[in-house]
């Protein structure tokens, strides 16, 4: 199988390089004979990569421990689901997984793109094939998943216990799908630059791809937060770790692109900016891969240090230089069709929204790299952790939240003062009401109060937008409210799907603010002893230590610590946290040997208001006296709900048909200039 895998990798490399060269040169020289072949070739690269992945999977499932990767990340007693996920558990396997998915997206880009953009496709095939060839090259020359050992161990080392979680099966693939699919919009941007077809065509061709990528990245990041929360046991879901930051960076720039692209479509502006954003997003995805795999910055999530980081650094630099040089050569052709007329316009609001999103991305990147910079300048090492990132980024995030509410309230081109007054009254009132409620309930955490106030304002904006749309439809078409709402969203999925995404972001922000009020207690308890923890919502949890129990399960010995939970004196069930010692078992039970250090499984009692989060730290003097950490984490359920709403909004936005904005900008004489219609509100007496 390893021979087949090696052969498939070499074939993929050869094909990738050939298709890259022929695709770019054939399209550049206008050779239809070459381009016809090249646009079909990504399927062959996909086949080669898939064969390599299947060969490694075969080795994993068949316990071929002579393959170094299989011995390092699996064992005979590893459950099947985790055996499958072992493909992306280590550096080498995950590179192969990356190459397979990238080749799949390369092929899909050829199959699914409308023939209207046929002239761009050879370039796209060229760029995606070169990217696949790069990943295969890294594998063949620095991290070969088919390397063999000089001997065959009886059993493998097993999978890290923290990776033996359902999150391991779903989170990395989602994140990789997000990272990898960015290559397709990037390839179209390069195709547009190389071909000189710099109208809005390439934008339309990549809109769905960008949304797909953004959606996968959003799902991947949210699943990553969930995994960290339920598995790592530190009680939170975001730690500003360099690897977490690396996933956030392309998400931020892609979000900026999804906003600014609307201005290019509607007003023919920001063409250069949009190209810079797409190229920048791709480069940030490679930068994230570099950080994760090079070990240049300390992170709890990093793969083992290896020399693959240098490959990525080289690829990053070459890609950046070539892309931005190409952009520079096309600069004069990317002149805007129209100009921004007023600061009080939706275009300006979008522009400032872009500024903040890219500014936050810069700030996160700056913080991530600052230890290296500081060491280079001062010669001393420093740590840049959550207190730094919170101090710098939370105010920016709050500003962005406020701007999310402001943008939709301002008319395109130039908003009149009457329009501003009318639009802002209700959302501002909602925001002020929330502020009053926060202060009245004794809330004094500045960031939390501002987050909730801006959240109220933005919620007011979104509700007002839906309300006005539904009301207008109800009156114009005599429709019932639910039908009007459904048709309103159906006819402009992009806009209203976008608002649903904003609702998701809003829920996130409120939930994040809730974490400011978390409580933590540590206790050492004998069986029958209890600890009381006060909830920020006012009630009292009483947790009584019941005892410890030990049993064997699958590939581990479990020590379970159980607490009886009561809320305000009323019994509310049991909560268990575990210590798990995994083992590999080459022979019978007597020969089993432990692998890795014991890991902790947290116990979580989740409700809409808060999570009761129990961590069993260990036992005192080998007795049943247990050491616990108990957290009360407010509004965590809403983080996951925010993720679901965000994904739902993304799906609505990208659902085929119904989008009104995908056509080129149409204009009418100024006489027909669209101004907000105050008559509707005034005449009908609506708020």
């Amino acid at each position, binding site marked *: 199988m390893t021979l087949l895998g090696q052969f498939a990798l070499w074939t993929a490399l050869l094909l990738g390089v050939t298709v890259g060269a022929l695709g770019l040169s054939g399209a550049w020289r206008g050779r239809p004979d070459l381009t016809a072949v090249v646009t079909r070739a990504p399927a062959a690269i996909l086949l080669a990569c898939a064969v390599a992945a299947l060969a490694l999977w075969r080795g994993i499932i068949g316990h071929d421990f002579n393959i170094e990767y299989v011995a390092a990340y699996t064992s005979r007693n590893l459950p099947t689901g985790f055996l499958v996920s072992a493909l992306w558990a280590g550096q080498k396997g995950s590179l192969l997984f990356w190459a397979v998915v990238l080749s799949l997206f390369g092929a899909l880009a050829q199959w699914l793109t409308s023939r209207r953009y046929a002239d761009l496709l050879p370039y796209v095939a060229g760029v995606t094939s070169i990217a696949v060839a790069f990943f295969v090259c890294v594998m063949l020359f620095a991290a070969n998943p088919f390397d063999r050992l000089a001997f065959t161990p009886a059993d493998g080392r097993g999978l890290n216990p923290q990776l033996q979680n359902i999150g391991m099966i779903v989170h990395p693939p989602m994140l990789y799908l997000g990272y990898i699919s960015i290559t397709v919009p990037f390839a179209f941007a390069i195709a547009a630059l190389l071909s000189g077809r710099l109208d809005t065509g390439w934008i339309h061709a990549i809109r769905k791809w960008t949304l797909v990528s953004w959606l996968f990245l959003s799902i991947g990041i949210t699943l990553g937060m969930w995994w960290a929360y339920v598995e790592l046991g530190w009680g939170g879901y975001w730690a500003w770790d360099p690897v977490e930051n690396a996933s956030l960076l392309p998400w931020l720039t892609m979000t900026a692109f999804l906003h600014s692209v609307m201005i290019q479509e509607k007003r023919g502006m920001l063409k250069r900016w949009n190209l810079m954003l797409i190229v920048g997003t791709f480069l940030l995805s490679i930068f994230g891969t570099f950080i994760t795999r090079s070990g240049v910055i300390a992170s709890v999530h990093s793969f083992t240090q290896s020399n693959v980081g240098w490959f990525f650094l080289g690829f990053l630099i070459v890609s950046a230089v070539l892309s931005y040089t190409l952009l520079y050569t096309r600069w004069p052709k990317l002149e805007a069709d129209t100009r921004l007329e007023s600061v009080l316009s939706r275009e300006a609001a979008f522009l400032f929204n872009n500024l903040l999103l890219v500014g936050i991305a810069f700030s996160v990147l700056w913080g991530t790299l600052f230890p290296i910079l500081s060491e280079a300048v001062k010669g001393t090492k420093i740590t840049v952790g959550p*207190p730094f990132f919170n101090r710098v980024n939370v105010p920016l995030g709050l500003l962005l939240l406020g701007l999310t509410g402001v943008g939709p309230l301002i008319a395109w081109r130039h908003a009149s003062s009457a329009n501003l007054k009318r639009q802002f009254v209700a959302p501002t009132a909602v925001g002020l009401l929330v502020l009053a409620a926060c202060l009245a309930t004794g809330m004094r955490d500045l960031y939390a109060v501002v987050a909730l106030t801006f959240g109220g304002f933005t919620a007011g904006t979104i509700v007002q937008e839906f309300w006005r749309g539904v009301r207008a439809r109800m009156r114009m078409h005599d429709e019932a409210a639910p039908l009007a709402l459904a048709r309103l969203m159906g006819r402009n999925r992009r806009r209203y799907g976008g608002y649903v995404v904003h609702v998701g972001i809003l829920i996130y922000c409120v939930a994040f603010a809730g974490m400011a009020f978390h409580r933590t207690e540590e206790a050492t308890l004998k069986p029958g002893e209890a600890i009381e923890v006060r909830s920020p919502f006012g009630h009292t949890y009483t947790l009584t230590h019941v005892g410890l129990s030990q049993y064997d399960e699958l590939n581990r010995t479990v020590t379970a610590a159980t607490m009886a939970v009561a809320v305000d004196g009323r019994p509310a069930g049991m909560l268990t946290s575990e*210590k798990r010692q995994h083992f590999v078992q080459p022979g019978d039970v007597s020969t089993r040997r432990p692998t890795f250090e014991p890991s902790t499984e947290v116990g979580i009692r989740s409700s809409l208001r808060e999570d009761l989060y129990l961590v069993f*730290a260990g036992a005192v003097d080998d007795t049943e006296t247990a050491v616990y950490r108990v957290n009360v984490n407010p509004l965590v359920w809403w983080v996951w709900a925010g993720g679901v709403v965000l994904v739902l909004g993304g799906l609505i936005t990208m659902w085929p048909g119904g989008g009104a904005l995908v056509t080129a*900008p149409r204009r009418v004489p100024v006489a027909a200039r669209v101004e907000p219609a105050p008559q509707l509100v005034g005449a009908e007496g609506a708020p």
Partner: protein
Amino acid sequence: MRAPEPRRRAFLLGAVGAVLGTAGAAASAAQQGGALGGVRDPSVLGQARQPTDPRSNEGRVKAVELRLACSCGCTLDVFTCRTTDFTCTTSPAMHREVLALFEQGKSEQEILDAFVAKHGEKVLMAPKPEGFNLAGYVVPGIAITTVGGLLAWVIARRRTLAPAAGTPALAPDGADAVEVPSSRHSPEELERLRRALTEVED
């Protein structure tokens, strides 16, 4: 004929003794490894824990530990490391050091300074905002404010230089334009509604 009697008695005594002995051993075993006493296999629990110091739950202790980086190389702060990574021996030691310094009557800042003096600036989870470190805190804000201010200035200047007349306006792009509206409104009313709907769908 009486010979079997002692044997039977001995057998009964033996049986009772065996039952009692087994029960005693079982009870003893239960006490050792069951519901009342120790754990069956302590080796699978990792490090033995020390009882929690009541001072660990004080807000000031947590506040200091959240600002101190564990020096084991885990990238976590002391509080998070010692309450999450139960294999680490460094963070519990640093925790005891923090408690000892509080015991000596030192303030939070004095404790942080003591750690910096001992381990260097790297022991802080966020560098002090002074000297070159200040750049870390202010550069993003300054960059965003400068670019934002510049953008606002350019847009405002453009507006004063260029007259608005003659510039093209956006066309409505709502798909509703092709829908047949209700006939109960006057043409003027319909036009107003259409414009409003265009606005909300634009």
